[in-house]
């Protein structure tokens, strides 16, 4: 029986798709059979981040509307075994998604996979609500800024009320906080909210902290999830995040400002 995990945030541009790609890659690298679904119908991005945009034939909406079989639409990742991508449709809108259709697809995937990662669109409308509706766990992606924290707070409220687990009064969805684009130097200078501020307001468990890193932008543009870049700080932070998702106790890294050595000060070295 697969675990369904939604990656969501409310606010756009905080790193949902990057995180969904990185986490699903990390899970697959750990030997878990994983599928990542793009729920952002009309604004398809996940295929680009995963580097499989040239291999998309059928998509989520085709499957829901019975125009293609599930196995025809699933794209096998070229880099990692056990990883599959179900892309969104770029030509349709979110109204093409139906609750029954999503439920049916998830039920089929559940039998085959260990993890189903749902990449939610921004906002709190239909697409986002369907992405979270059947979830068992949620990764709430938040940037260290007030608007992102408030939107995450709103999403946490919806997770606790507008999901199947809430409606059936089952065990509530397990909520995890994933802070991305964290820049310890800018936190120290007061430009960004601190880790403690965010944790205090949102009051949920911290799953991971991803430092602001050039590696993320590079990975997105190359279509290689940043988890593959094991030498980068962001890649390592996502690997830690996946380990915690699997229940391991991993100490937090990258949350404190680095003391600059003489060489970095002389050459102004940038973070990899």
């Amino acid at each position: 029986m697969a675990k369904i995990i939604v990656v969501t945030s409310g606010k756009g541009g905080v790193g949902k798709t990057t995180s969904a790609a990185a986490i699903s890659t990390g899970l697959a690298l750990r030997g878990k059979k994983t599928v990542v679904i793009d729920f952002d119908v009309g604004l398809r991005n996940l295929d680009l981040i995963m580097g499989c945009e040239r291999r998309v034939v059928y998509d989520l909406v085709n499957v829901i509307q019975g125009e293609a079989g599930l196995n025809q639409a699933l794209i096998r990742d070229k880099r990692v075994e056990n990883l599959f991508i179900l892309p969104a449709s770029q030509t349709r809108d979110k109204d093409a998604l139906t609750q029954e259709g999503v439920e049916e697809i998830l039920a089929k995937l559940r039998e085959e996979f260990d993890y189903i990662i749902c990449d939610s669109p921004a906002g709190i409308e239909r697409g986002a609500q369907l992405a979270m509706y059947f979830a068992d766990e949620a990764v709430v992606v938040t940037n260290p800024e007030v608007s992102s924290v408030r939107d995450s707070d709103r999403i946490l409220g919806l997770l606790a009320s507008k999901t199947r687990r809430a409606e059936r009064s089952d065990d509530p969805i397990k909520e995890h906080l994933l802070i991305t684009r964290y820049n310890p130097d800018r936190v120290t200078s007061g430009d960004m909210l601190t880790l403690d501020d965010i944790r205090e307001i949102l009051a949920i468990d911290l799953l991971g902290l991803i430092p602001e890193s050039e590696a993320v932008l590079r990975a997105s543009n190359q279509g290689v999830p940043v988890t593959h870049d094991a030498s980068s700080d962001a890649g390592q932070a996502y690997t830690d995040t996946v380990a915690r998702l699997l229940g391991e106790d991993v100490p937090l890294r990258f949350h404190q400002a680095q003391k600059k050595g003489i060489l970095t000060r002389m050459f102004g070295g940038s973070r990899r």
Partner: protein
Amino acid sequence: MNLKADSADVAFTFKGGMLPMTVMELNSADPEQIRQQLEGKLSQSPAFFQHTPVVLSVEKLDTPNLALERICAVCRDHKLLPVAVRGGTDPVKQSAWALGLGWFAPVQEERARRLASIAAENDSAEDQAPQDTPDEVVESSGARVYRGTVRSGQQVSASTGDLVVIGAVNAGAEVLAAGSIHVYGALRGRALAGIHGNLGAGIYCRELNAELLSVAGNYKRLEDIDARRLGMPAEVHFASEQLEIKPLA
């Protein structure tokens, strides 16, 4: 929302209020006997008889017809202003209205009816509760207890009595209560106490950062709050025509 209208063209607003009121419990229906005893009282404590409004309670009398007009005249002679009658039979009620007085239902019956209506409201509130209230909601004597963080976009209200939040009220969230609001955590959202007009309601919190505070429609925005009170335990009351924010000590 029961916020006070700013515009000048609103001629009046209706507000509920709990005013101190003297009840004159009549044990006798004889105006002459009342007059004699009032004269005695007047000489003892003249300060009390300053056109003091009184409610005449006739609950203990079992006379179906009452010389209400004469009793009222006796009261006015002694600087007591009857404003209403409580209890009595239907003819008593009619004559009170004829004299321009209000009429209140007898206490016993009224209490029973009020309790019944509270019970009914509680039932309906519980029906709506699962919609937007993820955490456990406990109904106890008059106060609604909410455990957990009230998150942005959520609204938690107690239509009767107090609201107790064990957790924070985040920015963009709203808590409302007919009575007082107690937040055992940070209050960052909007808090509206006394929504049915109870000016005696208060707001108490461990950390004040509220977007809006309101007691019976009298409100203060975050911008209006003295910066020295922010981020600290505070209590909010309506006093001398405005909201008063004091450290909770």
